[in-house]
């Protein structure tokens, strides 16, 4: 550690290289915002010269064991039992269950920093806890918003408060999310950074057939299409939280106002029946097309079928769907909830309160705006605003901040835990002490020296300049 490596012309490696362990229950082959974030972050960190390993749970019948993904990032799919919770499929909440596994992984991979993702991921919370026990600095990224009043949120917040006591730094994906996390976990605001998600511009871009400076008006003229024959695309899980009920009212009213507008609704969920009933009732069979569940690889194609994208979510901490649509050159209409207003400037994003009439007005406004929008110009703008390299650079700043500060020692942690409350504090302090004891036991039973350190897999970048015979050899460039 400590040498500068020139990876590519114009891209200098960071002054220090860390071994980052990204931990979460949510990773590929599951799909969602968290998964994409972890993957893109891992990829960019690796390209920036850091070493990355990802730890997640096994996806039964599909994936278990150790895999490598693109870029030479190792992924541990730990064979743990997982269950379907309201917030997603994750491992069961335990405290000691993962300690031996994670200790082994952390020692084997010589992990410098543990970065956990998502509050509702049990593996993440446990990993951060065990890393703190072992003296490894931790970082946490929170991807969702939570309330304060319902029973599940109260419990999650309580656990998060305990969990984040020992985490050195927290990253939130929007300013609203930061405020939410600060209030929930009672964390100091200056210990929380705001680093948003980003979008992959190569994947989400307008059609190649569109010229750089063409606006939609030009495109429609070229296609000899009336400016009124517009398609609105909605891709969302059809659940209450994502505003599927609003769609039931918005679609008919827009169709009534603008008879030439077509709709494409992608996604599946419990409210699909409602949408189908709505189509039946208003006789919109030729106007609304239901696609069912859309695979992530197909999303760019579906987006390109429309000119306007509508997102009616009732709560979003950072809506990646909006970014994807905007990067594809589409005009975006979204509900003004959570962190959505912070994502794009008003000329790229039309906001409306979660009211069907207002959303319909928003779609009307989009119809008025879209002729003058140039898809590629918008794509360039969005790509300039959000790109994964920038996000990674900001994350590396956070890593640099925490890398040199080890977590607090045991007695400090126990004191902080006791401050959580009369009964809860004692419980937490007890668990912390128990963990420490079990860790000492594990150190005795399976000492760190006995665990073989894993060699670093060469990334394809590093092969430039390597002699053919050397491919596959372990590179001894100062790794410990």
């Amino acid at each position, binding site marked *: 550690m400590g040498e500068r490596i020139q990876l590519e012309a114009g891209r200098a490696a960071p002054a220090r290289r860390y071994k980052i362990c990204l931990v979460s229950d949510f990773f590929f082959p599951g799909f969602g915002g968290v998964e994409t974030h972890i993957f893109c972050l891992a990829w960019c960190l690796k390209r920036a010269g850091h070493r990355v390993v990802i730890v997640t749970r096994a996806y039964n019948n599909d994936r278990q064991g150790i895999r490598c993904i693109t870029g030479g990032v190792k992924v541990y799919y730990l064979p743990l039992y997982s269950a379907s919770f309201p917030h997603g499929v994750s491992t069961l909440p335990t405290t000691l269950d993962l300690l031996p596994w994670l200790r082994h992984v952390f020692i084997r991979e010589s992990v410098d920093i543990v970065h956990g993702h998502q509050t509702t991921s049990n593996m993440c919370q446990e990993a951060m806890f065990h890393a703190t026990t072992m003296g490894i600095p931790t970082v946490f990224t929170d991807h969702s918003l939570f309330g304060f009043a319902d029973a599940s949120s109260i419990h999650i917040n309580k656990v998060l408060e305990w969990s984040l006591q020992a985490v050195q730094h927290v990253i939130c994906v929007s300013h609203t999310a930061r405020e939410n996390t600060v209030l929930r976990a009672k964390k100091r605001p200056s210990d929380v950074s705001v680093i948003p998600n980003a979008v992959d511009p190569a994947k989400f871009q307008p059609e190649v057939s569109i010229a750089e400076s063409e606006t939609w008006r030009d495109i429609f003229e070229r296609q000899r299409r009336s400016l009124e024959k517009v398609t609105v695309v909605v891709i969302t899980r059809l659940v209450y939280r994502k505003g599927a009920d609003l769609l039931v009212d918005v679609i008919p009213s827009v169709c009534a106002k603008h008879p030439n507008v077509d709709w494409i609704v992608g996604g599946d969920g419990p409210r699909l029946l409602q949408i189908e009933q709505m189509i039946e009732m208003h006789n919109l069979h030729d106007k609304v097309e239901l696609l069912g569940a859309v695979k992530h690889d197909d999303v760019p194609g579906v987006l390109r079928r429309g000119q306007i994208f509508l997102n009616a979510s009732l709560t979003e901490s950072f809506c990646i769907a909006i970014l994807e649509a905007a990067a594809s050159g589409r005009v975006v209409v979204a509900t003004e909830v959570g962190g959505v207003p912070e994502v794009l400037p*008003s000329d790229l994003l039309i906001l409306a309160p979660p009211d069907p009439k207002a959303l319909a007005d928003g779609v009307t406004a989009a119809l008025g705006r879209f002729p003058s929008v140039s898809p590629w110009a918008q794509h360039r703008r969005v790509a300039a605003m959000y790109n994964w390299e920038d996000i990674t650079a900001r994350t590396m700043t956070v890593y640099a901040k925490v890398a040199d500060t080890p977590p607090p020692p045991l007695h400090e942690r126990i004191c902080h835990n006791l401050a959580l409350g009369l009964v809860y504090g004692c419980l937490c302090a007890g668990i912390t002490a128990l963990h420490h004891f079990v860790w000492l036991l594990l150190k005795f039973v399976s000492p760190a020296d006995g665990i073989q350190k894993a060699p670093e897999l060469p990334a394809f970048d590093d092969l430039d300049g390597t002699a053919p015979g050397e491919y596959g050899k372990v590179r001894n460039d100062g790794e410990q």
Partner: protein
Amino acid sequence: MSRKSAKQSVKGATREGNGVSTATDGDRGPGRGEAGGDDGCGRGGENRRKPRPRDGTSGADGRGNCGDADNGNNHNNASNNSCSNSGSKGNSSSGNRNSKGSINGKGNNSSCGNSDSTGNSSNNKGNNNGKGNNSSRGNRDSTCNSSKGNSGHKANRRQGGKALAGGQRWQRVLWQQTGLGDSYVDEERFLEGLQLNTRVRLVPYAQLIKHSTAVTQQVAVATLYLQVFSQLLQGRISSDTVCAACAAAAAAALAVYSVCVLPRGTSSAPQPRADIAAGLSELAISAGALYFVSPILRTLTEPWADDTLTTVCVLLFVVNLATSDYSSAGDFAKETVSVNSASVASVLLASRFEEPGAGFATIALAVLLFTASLPFRRFLRVSYPDAWFALTWLLVGSCFASFVAVDACWAGAFAAVVAGITFAIPAWFNYEQRVAKMQINGPWDEARPTNCAAAAEWDTAGLLT
């Protein structure tokens, strides 16, 4: 940590980061004592952590806060003055999107002819650069403005945000970096959307006592029954006295009911005369059956020890008290679990008597107190609340008197329990509501769709957590 210190830590969390001085009445929240209605309106300064200047620009703040606290009503009040604010009005991104009471922004759309602030989010405040210069983009659509009108109360953000180079201010946006670092906490704009205790309804102490009287009444009823049972068991009262008292009480209740209800009829009993006749005949039949069956009861719990029986009966009465419906709107027919548990307990206890007459008397008393009195008490509570209140104290008094006659210790315990339930616990609840309540709302809340029938259906079905 205790809730109070949790509150302080929330204040501290913001203070440490940004040195903001919170609203004066921070800990106490809004002015208390208003029963029922929300008093968020006009108390914006106290509700919020950060007091807002009461100038024209933030007159909208008060309105906004008003509307937010107003649980879904569309406010179309005198917020139009906010529309006349030039330029700065726009709609802030961090606005009070308190969705549960989200205002339908229609109130201030049509009158808003703001050309330079239509469709703005806060990132355009004070930004006179090319970014999002609306007039050039022709985005004057007033409907756009209407759709965001509801957060117009977060209007004037010109004052907010740290001043940066180039005359700009720090904005709550993610697409633009300021160079201040990702963990920069802006003193003025951090937690600006936070709302504490805006929808807390404080019930005055007197009303709390009235509500808790329902519990006291049920406790008194149960205690009365147990007391009569023990007196019967000890032979201090004769079973004839008990039967006579039951009959007298039933007759009195019937008299009251016929005087008050029969002339008018009630919505649930359109044919009261027929109902009463039917009810009386049923009562007579079942009473007769019970009387003839009661000798068999004697052997029911013969092998049971006294302790077992006591434990079981105590548990059953606990179930009765726990599952009784104490609300004033409930239908007594739904109280199946509580009535059944009390009946089971009474049958078990009645089986302890040697002479069948006493067993019959016990069961008759139980039926009167736990089953038959329910509709009567419900009727009293709905139609004559004062009489119902008096009935409670009559029952409590008679229990107390019977305890005093027997054992002062029990009397004291009973009095303590009654005082605790009726006075002490509501007082504690009141205290906790006023001091420790911390209801946090803000832009992170899940939005409540307005004017949406499909969403409302989800809600009324009780499927939303």
